[in-house]
């Protein structure tokens, strides 16, 4: 187990800057998720950590040692690939034993570690089979077992669940979390799936255009996104954004949206004013069928039941909002409703830059 430090890492492919001056520190035994849309550079960061890509600038440290110029074999890492990369010409046993044999461990020890790893991933009955005889989920387990038996300093995972079907993904996600609890390898996990990130990560580094936009605990990334991008990327459905105006009224600061004033005291700098973006998550909006005080009038577009709750789509002055409601809620398309935002949960951002305003 080891700490990881990326220091101003930069990687270019031709003229495309894949990783742009990324610095990141990961603690010993931590589970760090790199999250972002495709093409944001998260996989490249992982590959730089693995040594599969040479960085163009910056340094990479694993366990306090500068490994920037080391080949993958020396770095004491293990990696799980998106395509699993299970060797098709070897049995499951030989696949899992591959790295141990490269380290020239005695055969008895190899056998013991392989059997342990296989048991941990519940594939001990498949050791004699070839990958072609396995299902996708089983191959995935082979790939994870092959990495874990190495007892790596650092475990790297590149979208390991994205090729599994939905049910299996849910099951495997929980299992990866349990595994991390047992082996406690420092883990870096790349995904574009924000639910995976929220459920697995001890911290999440949200990436965009080769840069880390926000790096924090899942709760803080979810509750206090640093900008419009993070708020709009995380959450299902993501955060709503409305144009609003921030102004001082008497001694108070209020944000006015669709003609309704919401108190904003202490949530923005005292001197802030002007056009802002108001961010609010779908679960922090209350819906009333009758006019209520300070209720924002809205028109119902569609109501979708999604199991434990319903997803309501409404329109407010040309903007479309998503609201989650209880299953008992009923409203016909085209009818009028009134929305109330939880003042403690609103997030105000600069209308021009999309950056969250610092709290006052």
């Amino acid at each position, binding site marked *: 187990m080891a700490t990881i430090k990326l220091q101003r890492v930069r990687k270019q492919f031709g003229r495309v800057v894949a990783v742009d001056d990324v610095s990141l520190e990961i603690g010993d035994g931590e589970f760090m998720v790199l999250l972002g849309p495709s093409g944001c550079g998260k996989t490249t960061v992982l590959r730089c950590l693995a040594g599969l890509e040479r960085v163009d600038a910056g340094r990479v440290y694993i366990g306090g040692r500068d490994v920037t110029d080391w080949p*993958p074999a020396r770095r004491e890492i*293990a990696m799980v690939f998106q395509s699993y990369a299970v060797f098709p*010409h070897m049995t499951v046993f030989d696949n899992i034993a591959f*790295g141990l044999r490269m380290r020239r461990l005695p055969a008895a020890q190899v056998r013991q570690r392989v059997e342990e790893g296989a048991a941990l991933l519940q594939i001990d009955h498949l050791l004699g089979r070839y990958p072609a005889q396995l299902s996708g989920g089983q191959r995935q387990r082979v790939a994870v077992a092959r990495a874990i038996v190495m007892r790596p300093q650092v475990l790297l995972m590149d979208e390991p669940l994205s090729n599994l079907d939905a049910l299996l993904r849910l099951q495997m996600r929980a299992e990866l979390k349990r595994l991390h609890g047992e082996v406690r390898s420092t883990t870096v996990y790349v995904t574009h799936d924000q639910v995976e990130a929220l459920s697995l990560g001890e911290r999440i580094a949200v990436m965009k255009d080769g840069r880390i936009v926000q790096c924090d605990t899942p709760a803080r990334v979810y509750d206090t996104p640093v900008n419009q991008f993070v708020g709009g990327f995380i959450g299902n459905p993501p955060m709503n954004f409305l144009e609003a105006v921030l102004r001082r009224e008497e001694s108070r600061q209020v944000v006015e949206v669709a003609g309704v004033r919401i108190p904003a005291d202490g949530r923005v700098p005292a001197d802030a004013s002007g056009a802002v973006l108001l961010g609010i998550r779908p679960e922090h909006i209350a819906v009333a069928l009758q006019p209520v005080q300070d209720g924002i009038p809205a028109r119902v577009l569609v109501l979708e039941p999604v199991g434990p709750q319903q997803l309501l789509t409404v329109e407010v002055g040309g903007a479309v909002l998503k609201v989650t409601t209880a299953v008992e809620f009923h409203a016909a398309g085209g009818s009028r409703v009134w929305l109330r935002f939880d003042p403690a949960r609103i997030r105000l951002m600069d209308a021009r830059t999309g950056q969250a305003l610092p709290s006052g």
Partner: protein
Amino acid sequence: MSRPARQALLAVTVALLAAWVLLPLVLIALASFTPRSQLYAWPRPLLPQPWSAETMRFFFQAQGVLPSTLNSLLVAALTIALSVAIGAPAGYALSRFRFPGREAFRLGILATKMFPATILAVPLAVAFIRWGLYDTLWGVAFVHTALALPFTIIITMSVFLGVPLELEEAAMTLGCSRLQAFRRVALPIALPGLAAAAIFTFVLSWNEVFAATILTLRNRTLPALVMNAVGAAGAPLDYRFAAGFFMIVPALIIILLIRRYLLTLWGVTVR
């Protein structure tokens, strides 16, 4: 045109094309198992009556046939060794790396196929005489290697394209160097495809007559020997049929075995 009519037309076309290729092969095969006396008879029965190995035996007992067969096998073996040793690394590089001039290199490989070998014949013979390669098996093998390389490179490229790079990368994260990853993972997976490339090279060398004829005098390969026997010495019909059959058979068997790899030659799989 209606659907059945179109299909009928297609079937007839295919049958004609197949007959174009197959009919001579069948006639040669039949003739080479017909007794000598019947070969010159008129009208000749289509099927040999009786079947007889006499013609084939006559061919094998003819002067020079056995040594030439051995020469052909040796040249083919040398050609395979050389073209795989040179072509497989080139194919691997083309499949794995993007380097400046990659497309030009690929085109260049194909362009060499368009160069008429006839023009090279005299300068090549002169050069080989000067280098002491004339009338040696090595000399023929070198020319055959040059002829086979474009195919070897293209085939091995498509073979290595079929081995995901991630497999080698996984091996590297598990403690392999680049070379070890290639040897332990990419090579074993590519082996059937490389064998196909080798077999293809064998057919090419086994059937090559032009370079073999002009570059050898006493150390003839089989096609060169037969060519000479037919052209200069006016070999009898039975010798021609038997020789033709004997040279066709390995090629046929081998093409049958590797047709899957030939169909994926351009990275497009036809099943």
